[in-house]
């Protein structure tokens, strides 16, 4: 009993820190589509918060880039799922990502000025690292449809660019 409780607790902690860690089973294509779309939407929401709160021109330019690119990827993703007649399916990973992002947004909402800028950009670096890691090790290898796999691979290249861009902005904020 004690061991079970402890592992359940450990699992809970993992869910909070690493939404992808709990996805032990190989996700299906409808789940992968949902995760990828959700991850993009969450980054757009984060960028929109930054566009409202930040006054730093580099941060604002970065946030604009995130909205533009992620909206473009998501349009392609929606077109693809329509074409493939796949209905994106909600799943534990999408839910964990959404929960973590809501918590981050609430944390950032309390910050202002340079403190907000730094926290937003640092989180963007971490978020893109996490999503890129998941794409590389879990989502792309698990995708069975070649077109979905191709879109995820293009997405990975875009998001790796975002990660570098975010790191560059972070280095300028210091």
């Amino acid at each position, binding site marked *: 009993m004690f061991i079970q409780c402890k592992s359940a607790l450990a699992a809970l902690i993992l869910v909070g820190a690493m939404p992808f860690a709990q996805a032990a089973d190989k996700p299906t294509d409808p789940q992968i589509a949902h995760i990828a779309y959700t991850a993009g939407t969450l980054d757009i929401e984060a960028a929109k918060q930054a566009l409202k709160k930040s006054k730093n021109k580099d941060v604002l330019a970065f946030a604009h*880039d995130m909205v*533009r*690119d992620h909206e*473009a*990827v998501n*349009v*392609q993703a929606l077109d693809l799922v329509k074409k493939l007649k796949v209905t994106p399916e909600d799943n534990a990973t999408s839910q964990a990502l959404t929960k973590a992002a809501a918590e981050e947004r609430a944390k950032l909402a309390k910050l202002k000025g340079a403190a907000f800028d730094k926290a937003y950009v640092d989180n963007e670096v971490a978020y893109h690292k996490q999503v890129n890691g998941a794409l590389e090790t879990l989502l792309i290898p698990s995708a069975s449809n070649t077109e979905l796999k191709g879109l995820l*691979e*293009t997405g990975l*290249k*875009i998001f*790796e*660019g*975002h990660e*570098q*861009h975010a790191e*560059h902005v972070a280095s300028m904020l210091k």
Partner: protein
Amino acid sequence: MRAMVLSPHLGLSLALVVMATPVKAETIQVTIDKLVFSPASVEAKVGDTIKWVNKDAFAHTATVKNGWEVMIPPKKSASLTLKAAGTVDYFCRFHPNMTGHIAVAP
């Protein structure tokens, strides 16, 4: 029919005219597809134009650090005429993992 036959002499003078004309400026096309500049490395001369054709659904730039920048909107193309000799490395400001190289001869 006889008029159609070029004398060897006329052929030679035509060749001389062609050689005397300055080398015409060219347009060199670089395609952007799935976040890759292709070819990644091109050779050009001063006066040549580089035309980037963006096949992606994403906006890209060709940016030289402390130099020029060309914005290439999604599914569009954009051009730049090379004004100075030298080699330049460029990248996409939005996706810095995209890089390209141009060697510009005088």
